[in-house]
Protein backbone atom coordinates (compact mmCIF):
# COMPACT_ATOMS: atom_id res chain seq x y z
CA UNK A 1 0.00 0.00 0.00
CA UNK A 2 1.20 3.49 -0.86
CA UNK A 3 1.81 5.49 2.32
CA UNK A 4 -0.99 8.05 2.70
CA UNK A 5 1.15 10.44 4.72
CA UNK A 6 4.19 10.40 2.45
CA UNK A 7 2.25 10.44 -0.81
CA UNK A 8 -0.18 13.09 0.43
CA UNK A 9 -2.57 12.26 -2.39
CA UNK A 10 -4.87 9.96 -0.50
CA UNK A 11 -4.50 11.26 3.04
CA UNK A 12 -8.28 11.28 3.40
CA UNK A 13 -8.08 7.52 3.87
CA UNK A 14 -6.61 8.21 7.32
CA UNK A 15 -9.33 10.75 8.09
CA UNK A 16 -11.99 8.26 7.01
CA UNK A 17 -10.40 5.55 9.09
CA UNK A 18 -10.42 7.76 12.18
CA UNK A 19 -14.03 8.71 11.47
CA UNK A 20 -14.91 4.99 11.13
CA UNK A 21 -16.28 5.63 7.65
CA UNK A 22 -13.76 3.54 5.74
CA UNK A 23 -14.93 0.27 4.18
CA UNK A 24 -13.69 -2.93 5.78
CA UNK A 25 -11.35 -3.94 2.96
CA UNK A 26 -9.48 -0.63 2.83
CA UNK A 27 -9.48 -0.41 6.63
CA UNK A 28 -7.74 -3.79 6.83
CA UNK A 29 -5.13 -2.68 4.29
CA UNK A 30 -4.47 0.51 6.22
CA UNK A 31 -4.16 -1.34 9.50
CA UNK A 32 -1.58 -3.65 7.93
CA UNK A 33 0.30 -0.62 6.64
CA UNK A 34 0.20 1.20 9.96
CA UNK A 35 1.92 -1.69 11.71
CA UNK A 36 5.04 -0.90 9.68
CA UNK A 37 4.61 2.86 9.13
CA UNK A 38 5.37 5.09 12.11
CA UNK A 39 4.21 8.26 10.29
CA UNK A 40 0.76 6.85 9.61
CA UNK A 41 0.50 5.46 13.13
CA UNK A 42 1.38 8.88 14.57
CA UNK A 43 -1.10 10.60 12.28
CA UNK A 44 -3.78 8.12 13.30
CA UNK A 45 -3.12 8.62 17.01
CA UNK A 46 -3.19 12.41 16.72
CA UNK A 47 -6.34 12.45 14.57
CA UNK A 48 -8.13 9.98 16.84
CA UNK A 49 -7.27 12.11 19.85
CA UNK A 50 -8.59 15.20 18.09
CA UNK A 51 -11.76 13.32 17.15
CA UNK A 52 -12.32 12.39 20.77
CA UNK A 53 -11.59 15.92 21.95
CA UNK A 54 -14.07 17.38 19.47
CA UNK A 55 -16.75 15.02 20.76
CA UNK A 56 -16.64 16.96 24.01
CA UNK A 57 -18.43 19.88 22.35
CA UNK A 58 -22.06 19.03 22.97
CA UNK A 59 -25.01 20.12 20.92
CA UNK A 60 -27.49 22.22 22.83
CA UNK A 61 -31.13 21.23 23.34
CA UNK A 62 -33.51 22.13 20.55
CA UNK A 63 -35.86 25.01 21.34
CA UNK A 64 -39.31 23.60 22.17
CA UNK A 65 -41.31 26.21 20.25
CA UNK A 66 -39.22 26.11 17.10
CA UNK A 67 -41.86 24.47 14.88
CA UNK A 68 -44.64 26.67 16.27
CA UNK A 69 -42.68 29.81 15.39
CA UNK A 70 -42.09 28.59 11.85
CA UNK A 71 -45.73 27.69 11.27
CA UNK A 72 -46.79 31.05 12.72
CA UNK A 73 -44.44 32.79 10.32
CA UNK A 74 -45.78 30.75 7.40
CA UNK A 75 -49.36 31.64 8.38
CA UNK A 76 -48.44 35.33 8.56
CA UNK A 77 -46.77 35.18 5.16
CA UNK A 78 -49.75 33.42 3.61
CA UNK A 79 -52.03 36.13 4.98
CA UNK A 80 -49.91 38.83 3.40
CA UNK A 81 -49.27 36.96 0.18
CA UNK A 82 -52.25 38.41 -1.74
CA UNK A 83 -51.25 41.99 -1.08
CA UNK A 84 -47.61 41.13 -1.78
CA UNK A 85 -48.56 39.56 -5.13
CA UNK A 86 -50.34 42.73 -6.19
CA UNK A 87 -47.45 44.87 -5.02
CA UNK A 88 -45.00 42.71 -6.95
CA UNK A 89 -47.12 42.97 -10.07
CA UNK A 90 -47.18 46.74 -9.77
CA UNK A 91 -43.49 46.97 -8.99
CA UNK A 92 -42.43 44.74 -11.84
CA UNK A 93 -44.90 46.35 -14.25
CA UNK A 94 -43.35 49.74 -13.50
CA UNK A 95 -40.03 48.47 -14.71
CA UNK A 96 -41.30 47.01 -17.95
CA UNK A 97 -40.72 48.87 -21.21
CA UNK A 98 -44.33 48.22 -22.29
CA UNK A 99 -45.52 50.58 -19.59
CA UNK A 100 -45.70 53.70 -21.86
CA UNK A 101 -47.84 51.78 -24.35
CA UNK A 102 -50.15 50.65 -21.59
CA UNK A 103 -50.32 54.23 -20.35
CA UNK A 104 -51.17 55.54 -23.83
CA UNK A 105 -53.90 52.91 -24.25
CA UNK A 106 -55.38 53.87 -20.90
CA UNK A 107 -55.33 57.55 -21.89
CA UNK A 108 -57.16 56.79 -25.17
CA UNK A 109 -59.69 54.67 -23.34
CA UNK A 110 -60.28 57.42 -20.81
CA UNK A 111 -60.76 59.91 -23.66
CA UNK A 112 -63.31 57.69 -25.36
CA UNK A 113 -65.22 57.23 -22.15
CA UNK A 114 -65.20 60.97 -21.60
CA UNK A 115 -66.53 61.63 -25.11
CA UNK A 116 -69.43 59.24 -24.74
CA UNK A 117 -70.45 60.26 -21.28
CA UNK A 118 -70.03 64.06 -21.21
CA UNK A 119 -73.23 66.23 -21.30
CA UNK A 120 -74.66 67.80 -24.45
CA UNK A 121 -73.49 71.26 -23.45
CA UNK A 122 -69.94 70.08 -23.63
CA UNK A 123 -70.42 68.97 -27.25
CA UNK A 124 -70.92 72.57 -28.44
CA UNK A 125 -74.69 72.66 -28.73
CA UNK A 126 -76.00 76.04 -27.54
CA UNK A 127 -78.28 76.08 -24.62
CA UNK A 128 -81.91 77.03 -25.22
CA UNK A 129 -81.63 80.44 -23.66
CA UNK A 130 -78.19 81.34 -24.95
CA UNK A 131 -77.68 84.99 -25.81
CA UNK A 132 -76.41 85.82 -29.33
CA UNK A 133 -74.35 88.86 -29.92
CA UNK A 134 -74.06 90.11 -33.54
CA UNK A 135 -71.19 92.38 -34.42
CA UNK A 136 -71.56 95.10 -37.21
CA UNK A 137 -68.75 93.51 -39.18
CA UNK A 138 -70.71 90.25 -39.31
CA UNK A 139 -73.73 92.07 -40.85
CA UNK A 140 -71.59 93.69 -43.50
CA UNK A 141 -69.98 90.40 -44.38
CA UNK A 142 -73.40 88.75 -44.70
CA UNK A 143 -74.74 91.54 -46.96
CA UNK A 144 -71.68 91.32 -49.17
CA UNK A 145 -72.10 87.58 -49.52
CA UNK A 146 -75.78 87.96 -50.44
CA UNK A 147 -74.90 90.52 -53.13
CA UNK A 148 -72.31 88.18 -54.57
CA UNK A 149 -74.84 85.37 -54.69
CA UNK A 150 -77.39 87.62 -56.43
CA UNK A 151 -74.81 88.59 -59.01
CA UNK A 152 -73.96 84.98 -59.68
CA UNK A 153 -77.64 84.17 -60.03
CA UNK A 154 -78.03 86.90 -62.68
CA UNK A 155 -74.92 85.96 -64.61
CA UNK A 156 -76.48 83.34 -67.00
CA UNK A 157 -79.33 85.72 -68.06
CA UNK A 158 -76.85 88.53 -68.78
CA UNK A 159 -74.77 86.18 -70.89
CA UNK A 160 -77.86 85.03 -72.83
CA UNK A 161 -78.95 88.58 -73.62
CA UNK A 162 -75.48 89.29 -75.06
CA UNK A 163 -75.79 86.30 -77.45
CA UNK A 164 -79.07 87.59 -79.20
CA UNK A 165 -78.91 88.36 -83.03
CA UNK A 166 -79.24 92.10 -82.48
CA UNK A 167 -76.23 92.01 -80.34
CA UNK A 168 -74.34 89.83 -82.78
CA UNK A 169 -74.88 92.40 -85.58
Amino acid at each position, binding site marked *: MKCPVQSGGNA*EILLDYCAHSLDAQRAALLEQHMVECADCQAFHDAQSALWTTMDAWPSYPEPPDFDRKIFAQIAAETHQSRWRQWRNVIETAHMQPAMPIVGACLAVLAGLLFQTTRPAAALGEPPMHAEFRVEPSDVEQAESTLEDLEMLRRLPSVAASRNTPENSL
Partner: protein
Amino acid sequence: MTATSLTLETAQPQLDAGVDTYIVTSGIALERDAELMLRVREGCSTSFAQLLERHRGPVIHFLYRMVQNQAVAEELAQEVFLRVYRSRGTYEPTAKFTTWLFRIATHLALNAIRDGKAEKNKESLDNEQADGAVRQVADRKLSVEQVLVNQVKVDEIRRSIQSLPDKQRSAVLMHKYQELEYSQIAKVLNCSESAVKSLLFRAYETLRSKLAHFS
Protein backbone atom coordinates in the same frame (compact mmCIF):
# COMPACT_ATOMS: atom_id res chain seq x y z
CA MET B 1 -48.69 17.30 -12.49
CA THR B 2 -45.04 16.66 -13.21
CA ALA B 3 -43.46 13.40 -14.16
CA THR B 4 -41.80 13.14 -10.77
CA SER B 5 -44.97 13.49 -8.80
CA LEU B 6 -46.66 10.97 -11.07
CA THR B 7 -44.08 8.39 -10.14
CA LEU B 8 -44.85 8.94 -6.47
CA GLU B 9 -48.23 7.34 -6.85
CA THR B 10 -46.56 4.05 -7.68
CA ALA B 11 -43.89 4.33 -5.01
CA GLN B 12 -43.69 1.69 -2.32
CA PRO B 13 -41.91 2.35 0.96
CA GLN B 14 -39.05 0.00 1.68
CA LEU B 15 -40.03 -0.43 5.30
CA ASP B 16 -38.42 -3.71 6.19
CA ALA B 17 -34.97 -2.63 5.06
CA GLY B 18 -35.11 0.44 7.27
CA VAL B 19 -33.77 2.52 4.40
CA ASP B 20 -34.96 6.05 3.87
CA THR B 21 -35.80 5.63 0.24
CA TYR B 22 -38.92 4.86 -1.75
CA ILE B 23 -38.56 2.37 -4.55
CA VAL B 24 -40.42 3.54 -7.58
CA THR B 25 -41.71 1.09 -10.19
CA SER B 26 -39.70 2.83 -12.89
CA GLY B 27 -36.57 1.78 -11.01
CA ILE B 28 -35.68 5.25 -9.71
CA ALA B 29 -35.15 5.40 -5.96
CA LEU B 30 -36.54 8.61 -4.61
CA GLU B 31 -35.07 9.93 -1.39
CA ARG B 32 -37.54 10.05 1.50
CA ASP B 33 -36.88 13.76 2.06
CA ALA B 34 -37.36 14.54 -1.61
CA GLU B 35 -40.62 12.63 -1.55
CA LEU B 36 -41.79 14.66 1.47
CA MET B 37 -40.71 17.86 -0.20
CA LEU B 38 -42.70 16.99 -3.32
CA ARG B 39 -45.72 16.47 -1.11
CA VAL B 40 -45.10 19.89 0.47
CA ARG B 41 -45.09 21.29 -3.06
CA GLU B 42 -48.54 19.79 -3.51
CA GLY B 43 -49.72 21.62 -0.38
CA CYS B 44 -49.25 18.98 2.34
CA SER B 45 -48.29 20.75 5.56
CA THR B 46 -47.93 17.46 7.44
CA SER B 47 -45.03 16.55 5.18
CA PHE B 48 -43.39 19.85 6.00
CA ALA B 49 -43.82 19.10 9.69
CA GLN B 50 -42.12 15.74 9.09
CA LEU B 51 -39.24 17.42 7.31
CA LEU B 52 -38.90 19.79 10.23
CA GLU B 53 -38.89 16.89 12.65
CA ARG B 54 -36.17 15.09 10.70
CA HIS B 55 -33.82 18.02 10.08
CA ARG B 56 -34.53 20.59 12.77
CA GLY B 57 -31.85 19.26 15.12
CA PRO B 58 -28.96 18.87 12.65
CA VAL B 59 -29.61 22.30 11.13
CA ILE B 60 -29.83 24.08 14.49
CA HIS B 61 -26.71 22.35 15.79
CA PHE B 62 -24.75 23.07 12.64
CA LEU B 63 -25.74 26.74 12.72
CA TYR B 64 -25.02 26.98 16.42
CA ARG B 65 -21.52 25.64 15.87
CA MET B 66 -21.05 27.94 12.88
CA VAL B 67 -22.14 31.23 14.48
CA GLN B 68 -21.61 30.14 18.11
CA ASN B 69 -24.61 32.09 19.28
CA GLN B 70 -27.82 30.39 20.34
CA ALA B 71 -30.26 33.18 19.48
CA VAL B 72 -28.72 33.85 16.09
CA ALA B 73 -28.53 30.13 15.33
CA GLU B 74 -32.24 29.71 16.05
CA GLU B 75 -33.12 32.74 13.96
CA LEU B 76 -31.04 31.44 11.05
CA ALA B 77 -32.46 27.93 11.37
CA GLN B 78 -35.96 29.37 11.10
CA GLU B 79 -34.93 31.29 8.03
CA VAL B 80 -33.50 28.08 6.49
CA PHE B 81 -36.82 26.24 6.86
CA LEU B 82 -38.82 29.24 5.73
CA ARG B 83 -36.68 29.40 2.60
CA VAL B 84 -37.27 25.72 2.04
CA TYR B 85 -41.01 26.27 2.38
CA ARG B 86 -40.99 29.31 0.10
CA SER B 87 -39.07 27.33 -2.54
CA ARG B 88 -41.55 24.44 -2.52
CA GLY B 89 -43.14 25.56 -5.78
CA THR B 90 -39.92 25.33 -7.74
CA TYR B 91 -38.40 22.36 -5.92
CA GLU B 92 -37.02 19.57 -8.12
CA PRO B 93 -35.28 16.55 -6.54
CA THR B 94 -32.10 16.96 -8.55
CA ALA B 95 -29.76 16.74 -5.56
CA LYS B 96 -29.93 15.19 -2.11
CA PHE B 97 -32.29 17.17 0.12
CA THR B 98 -29.76 17.49 2.94
CA THR B 99 -27.21 18.92 0.53
CA TRP B 100 -29.68 21.61 -0.47
CA LEU B 101 -30.63 22.23 3.15
CA PHE B 102 -27.04 22.62 4.31
CA ARG B 103 -26.25 24.79 1.33
CA ILE B 104 -28.91 27.24 2.46
CA ALA B 105 -27.76 26.96 6.09
CA THR B 106 -24.09 27.51 5.23
CA HIS B 107 -24.93 30.46 3.01
CA LEU B 108 -26.97 32.11 5.75
CA ALA B 109 -24.38 31.37 8.43
CA LEU B 110 -21.48 32.77 6.43
CA ASN B 111 -23.52 35.88 5.60
CA ALA B 112 -24.37 36.36 9.27
CA ILE B 113 -20.69 35.99 10.21
CA ARG B 114 -19.65 38.48 7.53
CA ASP B 115 -22.32 40.94 8.64
CA GLY B 116 -21.14 40.61 12.21
CA LYS B 117 -24.63 39.55 13.25
CA ALA B 118 -23.29 36.85 15.53
CA GLU B 119 -20.67 39.19 16.95
CA LYS B 120 -23.24 41.78 18.05
CA ASN B 121 -24.96 39.28 20.28
CA LYS B 122 -21.85 37.33 21.11
CA GLU B 123 -22.08 35.06 24.07
CA SER B 124 -19.15 35.50 26.32
CA LEU B 125 -17.16 32.34 26.52
CA ASP B 126 -16.31 33.19 30.09
CA ASN B 127 -19.87 33.62 31.26
CA GLU B 128 -22.92 31.46 31.46
CA GLN B 129 -25.56 31.99 28.80
CA ALA B 130 -28.05 34.75 29.37
CA ASP B 131 -31.08 32.45 29.42
CA GLY B 132 -29.49 30.33 32.09
CA ALA B 133 -29.07 27.30 29.85
CA VAL B 134 -25.90 25.43 30.50
CA ARG B 135 -23.56 24.75 27.64
CA GLN B 136 -22.29 21.58 29.17
CA VAL B 137 -24.43 18.51 29.42
CA ALA B 138 -25.24 18.21 33.08
CA ASP B 139 -23.74 15.19 34.74
CA ARG B 140 -24.23 14.97 38.45
CA LYS B 141 -21.49 12.36 38.78
CA LEU B 142 -18.84 14.86 37.69
CA SER B 143 -17.06 16.87 40.34
CA VAL B 144 -16.95 20.65 40.17
CA GLU B 145 -13.34 20.44 39.06
CA GLN B 146 -14.19 18.03 36.25
CA VAL B 147 -17.04 20.25 35.11
CA LEU B 148 -14.71 23.23 35.00
CA VAL B 149 -12.05 21.28 33.11
CA ASN B 150 -14.68 20.18 30.62
CA GLN B 151 -15.91 23.75 30.26
CA VAL B 152 -12.40 24.98 29.49
CA LYS B 153 -11.99 22.19 26.97
CA VAL B 154 -15.25 23.01 25.19
CA ASP B 155 -14.42 26.71 25.11
CA GLU B 156 -11.05 25.96 23.60
CA ILE B 157 -12.59 23.71 20.96
CA ARG B 158 -15.05 26.48 20.13
CA ARG B 159 -12.29 29.06 19.84
CA SER B 160 -10.11 26.78 17.72
CA ILE B 161 -12.94 26.02 15.30
CA GLN B 162 -13.97 29.66 15.21
CA SER B 163 -10.46 30.68 14.24
CA LEU B 164 -10.56 28.51 11.11
CA PRO B 165 -11.26 30.20 7.77
CA ASP B 166 -14.95 30.13 6.78
CA LYS B 167 -14.74 27.29 4.29
CA GLN B 168 -12.54 25.12 6.49
CA ARG B 169 -14.86 25.68 9.44
CA SER B 170 -17.93 24.79 7.39
CA ALA B 171 -16.23 21.70 5.99
CA VAL B 172 -15.07 20.47 9.40
CA LEU B 173 -18.48 20.96 11.00
CA MET B 174 -20.28 19.19 8.18
CA HIS B 175 -17.74 16.36 8.15
CA LYS B 176 -17.27 15.83 11.86
CA TYR B 177 -20.65 16.66 13.38
CA GLN B 178 -23.15 16.23 10.54
CA GLU B 179 -21.33 13.33 8.89
CA LEU B 180 -21.92 14.57 5.38
CA GLU B 181 -20.08 12.87 2.52
CA TYR B 182 -17.27 14.60 0.64
CA SER B 183 -19.49 14.93 -2.43
CA GLN B 184 -22.22 16.63 -0.39
CA ILE B 185 -19.79 19.02 1.28
CA ALA B 186 -18.37 19.82 -2.14
CA LYS B 187 -21.82 20.72 -3.46
CA VAL B 188 -22.62 22.78 -0.39
CA LEU B 189 -19.37 24.73 -0.64
CA ASN B 190 -19.51 24.85 -4.44
CA CYS B 191 -16.10 23.30 -4.96
CA SER B 192 -14.59 20.01 -6.06
CA GLU B 193 -14.29 16.92 -3.87
CA SER B 194 -10.50 17.14 -3.96
CA ALA B 195 -10.75 20.74 -2.76
CA VAL B 196 -12.92 19.58 0.15
CA LYS B 197 -10.38 16.89 1.08
CA SER B 198 -7.65 19.48 0.97
CA LEU B 199 -9.72 21.88 3.11
CA LEU B 200 -10.39 19.18 5.67
CA PHE B 201 -6.81 18.03 5.76
CA ARG B 202 -5.56 21.55 6.46
CA ALA B 203 -8.32 22.28 8.97
CA TYR B 204 -7.68 19.09 10.97
CA GLU B 205 -3.97 19.78 10.85
CA THR B 206 -4.57 23.19 12.47
CA LEU B 207 -6.93 21.74 15.05
CA ARG B 208 -4.54 18.91 15.90
CA SER B 209 -1.82 21.39 16.70
CA LYS B 210 -4.11 23.74 18.64
CA LEU B 211 -5.82 21.04 20.69
CA ALA B 212 -2.87 18.67 21.03
CA HIS B 213 -2.52 19.33 24.76
CA PHE B 214 -5.90 17.69 25.45
CA SER B 215 -4.62 14.36 24.21
